């Protein structure tokens, strides 16, 4: 068997099995077709998305919210992570507070942000930033703290400036940790944005599209959106893994 076909079957065996089971459930009418439409009807709906103007606006709204939240979370998370990781005294004062906030599921802060920022995209983005920013901050901080102490000591011999030590010795070593944080954070951002779109206060977004289709019993649309989100999530993970492999080649070979 061709290597690529073999690898494809290995990777997607469970997924293909799931599709077969779905088709069988539909064929034997185990579940009402309004609740569980056929996989091929969902697939056709999925393809038709790309011809619909409304879908384009929904997709664009969610993408923009995710991107803005993720970029701001990255800027804040990496900056504060570097500060707390480098100045460990400061970390001692803040560690417990950050642990406390980390333990709160980000989405439960949505009502709080609505109180302060109103029912708007600001609230949605603020929740996403909080949920993913903490992950990035923690990964950046521990990346820095866990960098080789011996290496740090040795490089004191060169009497490096603090900024050189941080940006040329410690930060590159912490980058794989930070990147792992980013990979988790973007998935969390996507989840939080979709959930906040499902709750209230917007006319556009994949979350809103998901809720509307469920309320109107357009279940083929609902399943197609779920599959689209699955594909988007896997695509992001694949992209991050590929970039990680290319940039941090030295980490694997170490």
């Amino acid at each position: 068997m061709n290597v690529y076909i073999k690898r494809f079957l290995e990777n997607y065996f469970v997924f293909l099995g799931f599709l077969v089971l779905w088709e069988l459930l539909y064929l034997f009418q185990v579940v009402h077709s309004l609740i569980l439409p056929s996989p091929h009807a969902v697939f056709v709906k999925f393809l038709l998305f790309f011809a619909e103007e409304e879908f384009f606006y929904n997709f664009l709204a969610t993408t923009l919210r995710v991107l803005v939240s993720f970029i701001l979370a990255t800027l804040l998370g990496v900056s504060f992570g570097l500060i707390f990781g480098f100045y460990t005294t400061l970390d001692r004062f803040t560690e417990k507070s950050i642990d406390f906030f980390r333990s709160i599921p980000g989405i439960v802060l949505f009502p709080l942000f609505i109180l302060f920022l109103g029912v708007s995209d600001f609230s949605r983005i603020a929740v996403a930033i909080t949920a993913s920013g903490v992950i990035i901050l923690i990964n950046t901080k521990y990346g820095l703290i866990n960098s080789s102490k011996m290496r740090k000591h040795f490089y004191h011999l060169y009497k490096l400036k603090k900024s050189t030590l941080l940006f040329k010795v410690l930060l590159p070593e912490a980058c794989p940790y930070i990147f792992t944080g980013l990979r988790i954070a973007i998935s969390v951002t996507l989840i939080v944005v979709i959930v906040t779109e499902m709750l209230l206060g917007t006319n556009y977004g994949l979350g809103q599209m998901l809720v509307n289709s469920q309320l109107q019993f357009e279940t083929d649309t609902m399943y197609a959106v779920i599959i689209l989100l699955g594909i988007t999530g896997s695509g992001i993970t694949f992209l991050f893994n590929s970039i990680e492999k290319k940039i941090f080649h030295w980490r694997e070979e170490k």
Partner: protein
Amino acid sequence: MKEHAALQIDKLNIRYGQLEVVRSINLNLKKEEVVCLLGPNGCGKSSLLQAIIGLTPYQGFIFTSTAKIDFVSQNPSIMLLPWLTNKQNIVFPSSIKEIDERLLEELLEFTKLKEFRNNYPYELSGGMAQLVLLTRALLHHSSLILLDEPFKSLDFSIAKNLYKKVRDLFEKYTPTVLFVSHNIDEALFLADRIIVLSEKPTQIKKEILVPFGNERELGILNSVHFSELRKEVLNECLH
């Protein structure tokens, strides 16, 4: 501090809790001298080097005539930055504009690292990686270089070719070098003076001057004179 001394150590004591590692060591290194601390495994040779660079707490006095000290660890992967190429590692922490490019080219040529300049440290053998660190020290004109068992992980056939290369580097660029080893051949070939150390708590047993002159060929490893000296050093180590 004595005149012409690059490093002066007086009454150095190192303890790890109750364990006395080094006891009252006095040592002077003249400028441009290559000295080997020879002793059994675990006798505290590496602790002594780490005390000089401030990594290990000690009692006593350590004076250096220079601020430019470099250290070549027995584990070069700790000191090399794996995300930089070998050339970038050699140049670091300076930028390429700040260094003497002619000297860099000369060193790369001399050490045969030229063909590996764009490779990464993980693509080098342990000995070559140590050569990268040594080249970095020489490029930055470090006046005192400390080497911690530089060829520990190498088999003899590879190590002896590096002995020659490293000794030639010492000869050409004249840094002051203090290195630790438990290999008598390595000590005799590279050093101008050997300090034989005792078991813990480490003290100096004997100092031996190595009479092979400055320029050394690998042939001396097979000479009668070398064998006699090896015997003498071995006797000192065993008694």
